């Protein structure tokens, strides 16, 4: 479904990711791991198109999308939860969700109830400005926003950061729930928590120093420990 080969991504003149080759198959949950600062978020930004890769290829359903803008990628079914939430602070919670709802290019009028079922807090606060929410509430909102448009490919950058434990558990359920309804949903997940990753991922990539250094269907303790900093 998504395949990148030798992506090179960076900021201005400094190249951060040098060998961003990974693949997410249809219906698969792929987890991208690695220590702080190795370039996980940078690679994901390159995949979403927020950063423009300077080299390499990127295919979505077999089609090269390296040139297309994030807008276009969103229309094709990318849903993105960035690190640091990036919710629209002056828009209300409801408006944030409506924006998410329309991200596949359709026009929608109301937020479907199931989103509020997942995150009841948000319903209570639907008229509050997004920027006023607490850290964890914002994170929930960011996830809700990405889920709203029923994406085909979810890019999650440390989605559970700052979320209270029972909801972290809920998020697993949510992901499983959605996956059971939408069989072909693919997920690329960046996660520090090995436990969380193990619970939902089908395949793993580990990065170090801007490169993918490990891939496999399971996290083998001794191969990966030092790379993950456990």
């Amino acid at each position, binding site marked *: 479904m998504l395949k990148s080969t030798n992506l090179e991504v960076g*900021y201005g003149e*400094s190249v951060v990711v040098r060998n961003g080759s990974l693949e997410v198959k249809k219906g698969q949950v792929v987890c991208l791991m690695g*220590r*702080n*600062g*190795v*370039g996980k*978020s940078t690679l994901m930004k390159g995949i979403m198109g927020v950063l423009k890769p300077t080299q390499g290829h990127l295919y979505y359903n077999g089609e090269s999308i390296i040139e297309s803008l994030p807008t276009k990628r969103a229309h094709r079914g990318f849903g993105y939860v960035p*690190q*640091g939430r990036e919710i629209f602070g002056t828009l209300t919670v409801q408006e944030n969700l409506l924006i998410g709802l329309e991200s596949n290019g359709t026009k929608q009028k109301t937020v479907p109830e199931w989103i509020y079922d997942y995150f009841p*807090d948000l319903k209570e*606060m639907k008229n509050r400005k997004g920027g*006023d*929410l*607490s*850290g*964890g*509430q914002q*994170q*929930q909102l960011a996830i809700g926003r990405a889920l709203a448009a029923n994406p085909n490919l979810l890019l999650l950058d*440390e989605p559970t*950061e*700052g*979320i*209270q*434990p*029972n*909801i*972290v*558990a*809920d998020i697993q359920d949510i992901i499983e729930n959605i996956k059971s309804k939408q069989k072909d949903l693919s997920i690329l997940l960046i996660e*520090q*928590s*090995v436990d969380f990753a193990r619970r939902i991922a089908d395949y793993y990539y580990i990065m170090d120093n801007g490169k993918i250094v490990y891939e496999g269907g399971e996290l083998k303790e001794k191969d990966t420990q030092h790379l*993950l*900093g*456990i």
Partner: protein
Amino acid sequence: MSQATVFHKQEAILKASQVTVQFGGFKAIDNFSFRIDDHEIHFLIGPNGAGKTTFLDAVCGKTSTTSGKLLFENQTELFKKKEFEIVRLGIGRKFQAPSIFTNLSVADNLELAMKQDKRLLPILKAKRNGGEESSIEEMLKLINLKVARNQEAGALSHGQKQWLEIGMVMMQQPHLLLLDEPIAGMTEEEEEKTGHLLCELKKKCAILVVEHNMDFVRSFSDKVTVMHQGQWLCDGTMEDVQENDQVLDVYLGRREVNA
């Protein structure tokens, strides 16, 4: 594993009584009372939106309290004090989203944060001396940013920024350290390291930490206070707290404990 300090042998370093913080009509903190003793690692936990960050904001002067008392070291009322005055009293704060000086080098970030006379004239005259130099080096080593010492701080990764900010707050040598989700985005190894660092630090000061990572809380807490909807829900050791039905309902979830 920590020793629970159930009895208040020492003086409270911070005592909050019946603090309320209101935004418009909404009470983010509602009649909340709280104390933390010296040399204690005290965790503040609770659901998203419970008011934890707001409480830290109130203590360090970022948000003004609507009513209530905040007594520091049994003598100073924090209410109405300016942020920098509160810092000078000895309260250090790390924010939830990393906050550093992006255009200064890592070392310069630490230099500015370092405990020193921060009034205008002394700073105008200040020169980095040998003692300061070595304490910066020491800190760089501690937060694992030695190689990045001359790099612009803006180019650090999320996690490295977290570390730098922790380093900056420690450089202030506070009596009370306020940490808002310090280990967010850290690897398990680094979590561990942070925890040990806290244990080291509590010899010199009291530490109030907001955190959602229960493994971390379990490993390093002396005491835990749970907030819910702006109010005090319960406190005690982590063992006590995770027995509490209401805490399980609103925060931990049944599964977490069973797992």
